[in-house]
């Protein structure tokens, strides 16, 4: 039995400081989401995979600075992802600082391997979209904006002429109806 399966993301990050298995569980939950975050922005898949590795390396090297009381784990994770993307753009190359710090060797993947990972993401995305179709329009729109597009509650609220609390409720309601098979992005 995986003793970490019942822990929330923020608990996993706190435990990661002392236990690598907690990090493994966090990675298993979130790696596809982070990869999708980069692919969704149009990055070539090699760079998207490379940046995903860099983000989780940064999680390992900076997890001692994570403070659950300051916000959800996913918000912290995506702040790292955005930061890594900005730095990569600024420097004109995929950011590697965290992997260098950990001593990780660069890995180059074959086209076949990259095809496979894209297919996996497509499959999970397809399930999400199919499921979203079953939701009422207001919930579908909120879950779409929040979960698929990764936008913040306030931005969605302003656009949909509702309060952030109302949008949060719609997202939660929608995710509950979907059996929470779709993970929420920050």
């Amino acid at each position, binding site marked *: 039995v995986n003793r970490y399966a019942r822990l929330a993301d923020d608990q996993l990050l706190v435990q990661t400081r002392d236990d690598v298995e907690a*990090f493994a569980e966090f990675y298993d939950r979130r790696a596809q989401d982070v990869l999708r975050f980069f692919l969704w922005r149009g990055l070539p898949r090699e760079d998207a995979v490379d940046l995903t*590795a860099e983000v989780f390396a940064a999680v*390992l090297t900076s997890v001692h600075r994570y403070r659950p009381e300051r916000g959800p784990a996913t918000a912290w994770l995506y702040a790292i992802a955005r930061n890594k993307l900005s730095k990569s753009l600024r420097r004109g*190359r995929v950011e590697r600082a965290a992997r*260098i710090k950990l*001593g990780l*060797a660069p890995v180059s*993947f*074959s086209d076949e391997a990259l095809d496979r990972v894209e297919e996996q993401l497509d499959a999970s995305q397809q399930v999400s979209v199919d499921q979203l179709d079953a939701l009422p329009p207001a919930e579908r729109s909120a879950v779409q904006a929040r979960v698929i597009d990764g936008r913040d509650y306030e931005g969605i609220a302003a*656009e949909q002429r509702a309060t952030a609390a109302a949008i949060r409720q719609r997202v939660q309601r929608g995710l509950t109806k979907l059996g929470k098979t779709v993970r929420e992005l920050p």
Partner: protein
Amino acid sequence: MSLEAPKVNADPLTVIRSQLLQAAQAARIRAHRRHRRRTIAAGLLTMGCLAVGTASAATGDFTTGVAAIDRLLSVDGPADVQSGSMGTSEPIAIPRDGGRLYVSAYSTDSGAICVAQSLHSDSDTSGAAEGGLGGCVQRQELVDKLQRGEIVWATALLLDKQRIFVGYAPSVASDVRVRQAKIPTSVKLAPAWRPDGAPQTDFKVLAVYDRAPELATSNSTPSDDDLTALVQDYPMVDAVDDEGHPLRNRSE
């Protein structure tokens, strides 16, 4: 002769997972040894890892995946802010102290419409720019909302004391009006643009910008929460047609 590492055929996310777990274990063992023995040798091991990592840090040039956005962001050479016709919308230039910010939209293979920002300094004559990729909206969702005459926000930025909100307006909008603006606010609309291979996805990139109200008059350093609140305060706007009539269906 160039040496190229062999390509790995295994699942990338599994390989990365394995690498990270091994590195984390190794780092933990090193930390434990350091703590126990506090020897110089343990320090040298870490330095060795850093050196190996640095030596292998050279990677290929980064790309956003859209050539025109690479040019806009000066990823590969000087920035080209005229690249409106090849894969991006025509950039909007927003004046700011000491330079300009260009914002442009692009379409991705995964069916999203995203925005990119490119920050240029007047004093830098090399053409270099600082770039960023903003929020993305799924193409179908964008089309649905634009057809209802809505404005769709993509991202918000805070540059020094300037707030900039970027979004999309229906292509038939001739102007965008800010409702209940408490301070002078500027609006810029790009010409209508349609991503390649995306019929009925015509839209105009929109930028609404002002001097952030609290920041413009304050000399004290604002907190992170204050700054976050400022860029989450999206303006209330209406897209209007040539005759000044709002496009959004008011009966909603």
